[in-house]
């Protein structure tokens, strides 16, 4: 029960950070990715602020817990990340912001999240084959 409460709380805090920072706004995200346009560097600071906290925080807690151990750079990592980047660059949504934006019940958030889930299933089907 305690673990579920902390998962809920962490999700809530994470989501709040997405709204406060502007990450939940796909136009702002595209403003950052559009380096040839009227470039908005804000998202660099979102990432910087977040990583500054995880760098310090993970140092304290990391040893106590299981974290990913792989360090090899392989094809699926690079190709998958590139495919994700293309989708992100088209629409301005990555998974976290897309999910929290779903709370507005906007047509575009519903379409995007449905397609994102379908993409995940599709990868699972092809990976198994």
């Amino acid at each position, binding site marked *: 029960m305690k673990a579920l409460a902390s998962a*809920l709380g962490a*999700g*809530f805090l*994470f*989501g*709040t950070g997405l*709204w406060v*920072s502007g990450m*939940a706004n*796909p*136009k*702002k995200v*595209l*403003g950052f*990715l*559009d*380096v040839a346009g009227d470039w*908005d*560097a*804000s998202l660099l600071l*979102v990432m910087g*602020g977040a990583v*500054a*906290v995880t*760098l310090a*925080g*993970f140092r304290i807690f*990391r040893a106590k*817990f*299981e974290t*990913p151990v792989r360090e090899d750079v392989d094809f*699926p*990592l690079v190709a*998958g*990340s590139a*495919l*994700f980047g*293309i*989708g*992100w*660059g*088209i*629409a301005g*949504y990555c*998974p*976290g912001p897309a*999910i*929290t934006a779903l*709370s507005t019940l906007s047509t*575009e958030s519903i379409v*995007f*999240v449905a397609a*994102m*889930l*379908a993409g*995940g299933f*599709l*990868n*699972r089907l092809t*990976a198994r084959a």
Partner: protein
Amino acid sequence: MHDFTPVSALLGGALIGLASVWLLAANGRIAGVSGILHGLFSPLDARQGQHDAQWRAWFISGLLLAGLAWQAAGAPVPVRVGFPLGWLAAAGLLVGYGTRMGSGCTSGHGVCGLGRLSLRSLVAVIAFMGAGMLATYVTRQVIGVTS
């Protein structure tokens, strides 16, 4: 660069970082949203052979509740109307497929992976940032996809 919002960006980023540290400290989990989401629907991906959908569902619920609370508080909700749904659907497919293939997204590889000083995550971040900037350039500046 008239849309630059450094204070809210840093503050929001710090909240995202805090939430990630919290999830690791309390649950021993990496706050990678794509991984949490995909794992919700795939029992086989669960650790120790048992399905662990519960905490994932609660984290996702927290993300949704944050959006509801934000709106209830009367904070500004950016709306984008008229962005082509076909492009949105294609983008969503790519994001879902790619994050699963590449084992992470902006949060798992970006916020958490960089915080762990993971080489894999650094490579992933460079790949999705680069591809993202290229895709935005092509769709916005060349093809002209906008809302």
